[in-house]
């Protein structure tokens, strides 16, 4: 942060892309009054409200749960609502859209690829027999809950995809969050057809593409640890071939 005529300021170098104005992306520099407790998102909002109304980005809850506001901050995928300016004290902050996704405008990226993958992994409880509601909830012990709880914490913020070099090279790769969510249902005792998701996760471009880089688990803001889910899914795939083929269906 620099002192600028008596007021402390933070300098943000923001990636801009306005397809209707200019065909090529550019970088724009903004100076924002700096407060110790300001997050990067506050700075973006300050720019939007007071300096440049054209700067475009997504956000909503500003408490790290809606998953809208991811961006590459100084090269690292982060939730802008959870990255404090003081973490970057003493230098300029480079704000770019999440890596590995096509940019629609400024910091807004196209995440349709993930939305389709999420749809494909059947992220819902599959029952072979439905229990009538009158019989109440399916019983699940705290230990059974613990087996998948961590993987149900994914907020779909896409930081893990932005951090994954494999996804960067092959967008067909199922990727961290989708696998973690698939595993979340596979490991849920209420689900009665785990194997329904095996073709997706054990596809040629499913978990086998993962080379254990581990960056997904490093950047995950919710401690989901997608890498762990991928490894667990790999073990399921490897042990699956020892089992007799499934019958029916």
């Amino acid at each position, binding site marked *: 942060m620099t002192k600028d005529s008596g007021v402390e300021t933070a300098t943000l170098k923001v990636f801009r892309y306005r397809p209707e104005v200019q065909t090529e992306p550019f970088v724009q520099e903004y100076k924002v009054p700096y407060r110790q407790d300001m997050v990067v998102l506050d700075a973006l909002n300050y720019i939007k409200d007071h300096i440049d109304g054209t700067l475009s980005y997504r956000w909503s809850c500003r408490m790290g749960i809606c998953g809208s506001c991811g961006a590459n901050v100084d090269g690292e995928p982060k939730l802008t609502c959870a990255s404090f300016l003081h973490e970057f004290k003493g230098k300029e902050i480079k704000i770019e859209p999440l890596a590995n996704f096509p940019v629609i405008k400024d910091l807004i990226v196209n995440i349709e690829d993930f939305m389709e993958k999420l749809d494909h992994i059947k992220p819902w409880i599959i029952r072979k027999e439905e229990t009538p509601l009158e019989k109440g909830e399916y019983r699940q012990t705290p230990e059974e809950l613990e087996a998948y709880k961590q993987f149900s914490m994914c907020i779909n913020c896409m930081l893990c995809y932005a951090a994954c070099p494999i996804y960067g090279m092959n967008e067909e790769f199922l990727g961290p969050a989708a696998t973690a969510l698939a595993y979340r249902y596979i490991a849920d005792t209420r689900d009665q057809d785990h194997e329904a998701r095996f073709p997706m996760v054990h596809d*040629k471009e*499913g978990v086998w593409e993962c080379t254990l880089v581990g960056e997904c688990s490093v950047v995950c803001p919710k401690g989901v640890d997608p890498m762990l889910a991928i490894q667990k899914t790999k073990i399921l795939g490897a042990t699956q*071939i020892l089992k007799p083929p499934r019958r029916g269906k």
Partner: protein
Amino acid sequence: MDKVKKEYKSDKLHALLWGVFSVGGFIAAFLLPVLIYIDNIAYPLGLWPVANSSLIKIVFMVSLLSTIFVFITIGGSLFHGIFRFKTTLPELGLKRASSLISAVGYIIIAVGLIALAYYLFQLYHGFDPSLFHRII
């Protein structure tokens, strides 16, 4: 809104290869250190447990058990090492070359396993036991 749904299919071959790789990881972790120590450190340097012995003591001795042990340990470690090395190449930005490197990797593994089996078989059947009695 009309989505072309991707066709998914479990990749059994990859699952098998990964399974072997994973077992190889355990082998390399649990069995390889002691093999390296006895045959390539303790024996040439004369350290425990082969020190103070009148006999050549290396792990490989002509018995079915030791033959299997060496095959599993060296074969598993070779598979694990090459497979892991090959899979980390895309991280280094070598994705384009990776299918070639993959092929080379599998060739090394295949040749290595065949050679390993061949020499072990040769040793098991045609080995001169007197070698083991040479006094150091």
